[in-house]
């Protein structure tokens, strides 16, 4: 559990358009890394390359290396499905499967793959995952009800439970709180702090306070202008990024003088 990610000089393309250029970054296991930066700077795009979700979009491709504990994700003969089962992802908008109950949503990663699982193992997994996502107490009496009946914050935690149920090594979160109210956001942030004990967490956020609250290290991405590729400007301890950044652009952004 909890592997490290090393990215070497990664270029990300949409067909011929270079969206992110020359990113090299080392993400430690059992840490929380936040990606911040203005809209359109490629931080979500870059995040999606970390579990090969980028290539789901027609024309999406990358150049460079992404190493998960030394194994290249983009090496020859690597099945993206294997990659994604080890690097889970939580999306911006909560997206529980509408046809499934809360329980089936948690088991989705197991059941959709056709893996046979005994009833007692399934029940254990559901409880463990929901407890892991701090949702168990709220839903334990209605596990057979549809997941879409939950509130937005609960749905997002259900999605996190669904992700940790497949026992990944790394969890990627793409603005997981941007569609949620402050109370649900707090619940998710607490959860991220707990997840850090077992997983490597990478989170994209627009909320700089959130980055400061939850992350150990912060990466600042920026874009020179429309049509230019996004770049990694600075990557450092979160405290350093927010109090004593090395780059002028980072300081402008975190102090609100950006643009």
């Amino acid at each position, binding site marked *: 559990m909890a592997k490290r990610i090393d990215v070497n000089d990664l270029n990300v393309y949409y067909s011929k358009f270079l969206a992110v250029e020359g990113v090299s970054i080392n993400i430690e296991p059992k840490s929380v890394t936040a990606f911040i930066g203005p809209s359109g700077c490629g931080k979500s795009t870059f995040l999606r390359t970390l*579990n090969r*979700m980028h290539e*789901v979009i*027609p024309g999406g491709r990358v150049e460079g290396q992404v190493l998960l504990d030394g194994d290249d994700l983009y090496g020859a003969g690597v099945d993206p*499905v*294997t*990659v*994604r*089962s*080890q690097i*889970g*992802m939580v*999306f911006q*908008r909560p*997206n529980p*499967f*509408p*046809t499934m*109950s809360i329980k089936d949503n948690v088991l*989705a*990663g197991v*059941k*959709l*793959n*056709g893996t046979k699982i005994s009833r007692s193992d399934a029940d254990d997994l559901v409880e463990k995952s929901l407890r892991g996502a701090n949702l168990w107490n709220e839903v334990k009496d*209605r596990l057979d*009800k*549809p997941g*879409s*009946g*939950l509130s937005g914050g609960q749905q997002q935690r259900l*999605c996190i439970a*669904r*992700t940790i149920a*497949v026992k990944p090594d790394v969890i990627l979160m793409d603005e997981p709180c941007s569609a949620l109210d402050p109370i649900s956001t707090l619940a998710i942030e607490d959860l991220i702090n707990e997840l850090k004990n077992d997983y490597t967490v990478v989170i994209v956020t627009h909320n700089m306070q959130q980055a400061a609250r939850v992350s150990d290290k912060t990466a600042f991405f920026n874009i020179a202008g429309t049509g230019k590729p996004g770049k990694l400007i600075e990557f450092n301890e979160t405290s350093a990024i927010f109090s004593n950044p090395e780059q002028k652009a980072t300081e402008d952004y975190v102090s609100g003088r950006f643009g």
Partner: protein
Amino acid sequence: MSATTTNPRHSTGGTPVPPARKRNSLAKGKLPKWAIWAVAAGAIIIGAAASTLTGFNIAAFAIYSAIIFLVAATIITTVVEGKRRGTNAMWTYLIYACFIVALIPLASVLYTVLEKGLPGINSHFLFSSMNGVTGAVDNQSVNDGAPVVGGAYHAVMGTLLITLWATLISVPVGMLTAVYLVEYGQGKTLSKAITFFVDVMTGIPSIVAGLFAAAFFGMILGPSARMGIVAAVALSVLMIPTVVRSTEEMLKIVPNELREASYALGVRRWRTILKVVVPTAISGIASGVTLAIARVIGETAPILVTAGIASQINMNVFANWMSTLPTFIYYQIMNPTSPTNVDPSVQRAWAAALLLILMVMALNLIARLVASIFAPKKGR
């Protein structure tokens, strides 16, 4: 009632509102509710009078009344409530009129079929075939005043079997095509070609589909190959484009987020399609399929050239001729069993027509039921 309607809140004394304001400056004149009914009543009376002048008939009466009402209601509303309200009233009543005009054929068809078909519906009609019913039998029942014998059981069974086989052929083909188009073929030349040919297929006249199936099987099995399965193939040619189109639309509206959520859990693409995408869209797909069935169940010409016509019960779609309800109706009207006494045949035809309408209605109801059963569950 006029433009000086007062606001009751202001006119009742005792409340601490500014006094002496008789008229709300924001308010305009408003027609009382009964006024429009009075206009309608007046229009009907004048319309009746006007149509009597030119020799009374119900169509002229309705048209005159409608025109008079439209003009009068528009003028009165314009005078009392203003120009915008007047225009609004005119269009509203015009749209009501169009709605009624559109409804007349439907109501008329239902009325006629019920009136003429109901006397022929009985258990004998429902559960016996035309086997052994000849012109002599019909003549006898007319001369003796005995009940009409002979029924449509064979045609009902033929309709059900041929439609069932047509569905069995077209649903897998249509659904898989749609899955390819939406999930795999985005932007590819093949998918563009398929979309084009599906559009072309939508426009194939049903008799051409019938001739195609007849010729195709004639080539393989010899020129006189007519049986239920040939008809089913002809109908599936008509059904497939409808199924492809409706399934495609339903798959397209499945949010991409669900696919991504599934991929992110390490689920393979075909399993994602099978377990996430299709179940999410299944209610729409099911109702699309049912509507496609409802469309082809009433086809006559392609059945005649592919399955022929039969008067006895044939439950085997792979041998011998078969009747369906539309061909049964057609033959009863065009070739009455007894050329001298056509009434029994006409009665059977109308009863069969009623039966066909009921079957299509039942299918539509089933479609709604299926859609609501499969729909993603709501609630807490």
